[in-house]
């Protein structure tokens, strides 16, 4: 025992066998949605008490995507940050160690999380009225609790779905925090699949499509503005295929926006807005 690591809490000495679960077979048995049918979204705000604003997002089965967003601020920046006439919005996206099927993820922030955090920041920053809060910081933290399948094999659709959920959820949390924003941001994904390149709205990695190309947009429906565009795959730009995929993604985002509006409104109604 002399070699025991004293800095950490050591496990019990008696060995136990970790449970072994059968492979998930949901993807094969689940009925395939129509190509223009979106999955149902559960979105609820104000679930993290210490945060200024927070939201939780979950997609209907067979999808397993679950994530939470919490917003802190606007709060004073440390003096070392220097003067800033606008609020600084920082965003951090983190995958929980237990979020992926199969292998556990490490705690340390990796390149993928860094990349997604930046994209999340870009998607949200455009919507917040940062000029209203000088010298302040607004911090957005998104934790992905469950992904759709594993994301380690560079399953792009799974990563895209996680980012799209994060954008929508974080925007709900910002609105819940009472931070002034010009519009809410919802994110949608569309893909061109198969030999013909037929368009599919809100494709899930569990649907088993042969994805040729996919596009994610962060979209402010009230202002008709795109805040973030991420495309993947091979598309013919001259033939208008690219535009059609992006347009389809915007259509998805517009539909998701109605859910976002309802979730934000629901909280106001439940707590303070009823007057009859």
């Amino acid at each position, binding site marked *: 025992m002399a070699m025991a690591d004293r800095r950490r809490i050591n496990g019990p000495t008696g060995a136990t066998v970790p449970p072994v679960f059968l492979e998930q077979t949901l993807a094969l048995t689940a009925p395939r949605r129509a190509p223009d049918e979106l999955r149902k979204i559960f979105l609820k705000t104000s679930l993290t008490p210490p945060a*200024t*604003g927070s939201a939780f997002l979950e997609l209907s089965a067979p999808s397993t995507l679950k994530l939470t967003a919490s917003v802190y*601020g*606007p*709060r*004073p920046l440390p003096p070392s940050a220097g003067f800033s006439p606008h609020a600084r919005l920082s965003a951090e996206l983190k995958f929980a160690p237990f979020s992926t099927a199969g292998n556990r993820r490490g705690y340390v922030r990796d390149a993928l999380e860094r990349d997604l955090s930046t994209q999340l920041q870009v998607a949200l920053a455009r*919507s917040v*009225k940062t000029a209203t*809060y*000088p*010298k*302040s910081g607004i911090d957005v933290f998104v934790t992905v609790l469950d992904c759709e399948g594993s994301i380690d094999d560079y399953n792009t659709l799974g990563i895209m779905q996680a980012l799209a959920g994060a954008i929508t959820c974080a925007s709900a949390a910002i*609105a*819940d*925090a*009472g*931070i*002034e*924003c*010009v*519009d*809410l941001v919802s994110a949608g994904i569309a893909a061109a699949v198969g030999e013909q390149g037929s368009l599919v709205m809100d494709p899930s990695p569990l649907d088993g499509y042969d994805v040729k190309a996919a596009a994610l947009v962060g979209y*402010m*429906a*009230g*202002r*008709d503005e795109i805040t973030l565009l991420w495309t993947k795959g091979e598309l013919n730009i001259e033939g208008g295929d690219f535009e059609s995929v992006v347009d389809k993604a915007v259509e998805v985002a517009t539909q998701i926006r109605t859910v*976002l*509006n309802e979730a*934000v*409104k629901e*909280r*106001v*109604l439940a*707590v*303070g*807005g*009823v*007057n*009859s």
Partner: protein
Amino acid sequence: MSISITRPSTPPSLAPLLRTSINNQQNQQQQEEDADGDIPMVSSAGDVSIVTPGEVVTSNPQWMRGHGTYLVEDREAGGMNIVATVAGTVQKVNKLLSVRPLKARYQPEIGDLVVGRIVEVQSKRWKVDINSAQNSALLLSSINLPGGILRKRTSTDELQIRTFFSEGDLLVAEVQSLFQDGSASLHTRSLKYGKLRNGYLIRVSSRGIQRARSQVVSLATANGGGEVEVVLGVNGYVWIAKKANTAPTEGVSITRLEEEASEAIYSSKNDFILPATRREIARIGNCIRAMVRCNLRVDEDMLNAVYEVAVEAADQGEENVDASLEGEEGRRVVEIALARKMGL
């Protein structure tokens, strides 16, 4: 146009109790507006004007935009739209349209009584957390220095700045002025203000505490708890403490009183507080939390009424009564108190 008058809001289950008063208010408002010659607003039952960020509130140019809105050009129809920037209820005052968010950071205004915590000590001032977007400043020159109010601030005071307030200390102060960026400068130049001790702090939403004539409430508690003082900071910080013994020891002149006060004024030492008093302080804290959760205005009358009901509920000896007044129990206590207040 889908704008309606938004009245003071009440949670659904409390609504029937308040119906009479709200209807009266509504009629009054309606009449006033007719007299002003404004357009009559539709306000049928269940007509709630709740908007989300990015939603167009109105395109009618007769309205001025207030807080929680911004102007954006209408690309199709031309002209300007007033668009909401926060989620909340639409409010109109004459021709001013604003959107009131459900929860927002506290925005200091001159004259507000706030409870705050020292977060940083600098050479000539303190930085105080008052639950707003920016920390506020408390200058050494805007506190009562011991040894008389009219004393001049010296460099010795600067060196021993931590003897007045140090990090983590709680204080009650008034907003003296506002800086360009909206942050506040505080002062404690009154015997009513200064360091807080002998009690505990609860934090509620700043929307739960409204500006009133008096922000300091004194309660005579039950069960031998004695007098308890509640400082309702407009910023949502509430201080509940045993009331200080202010009876003068002997006949003193004004200057003598000042000296005595200033000796104790910066003491960080708590008095011994009886368990009975502690219990009542905690109960009052739970009452305030329950009132804020039920969207009820916290003032002297209502706090007294709710506290009374809470004491009775605990006295009835129901073992399963949740003394923390969380959830349903708190709502029940608040509803009973409100019903009593309305004379039902």
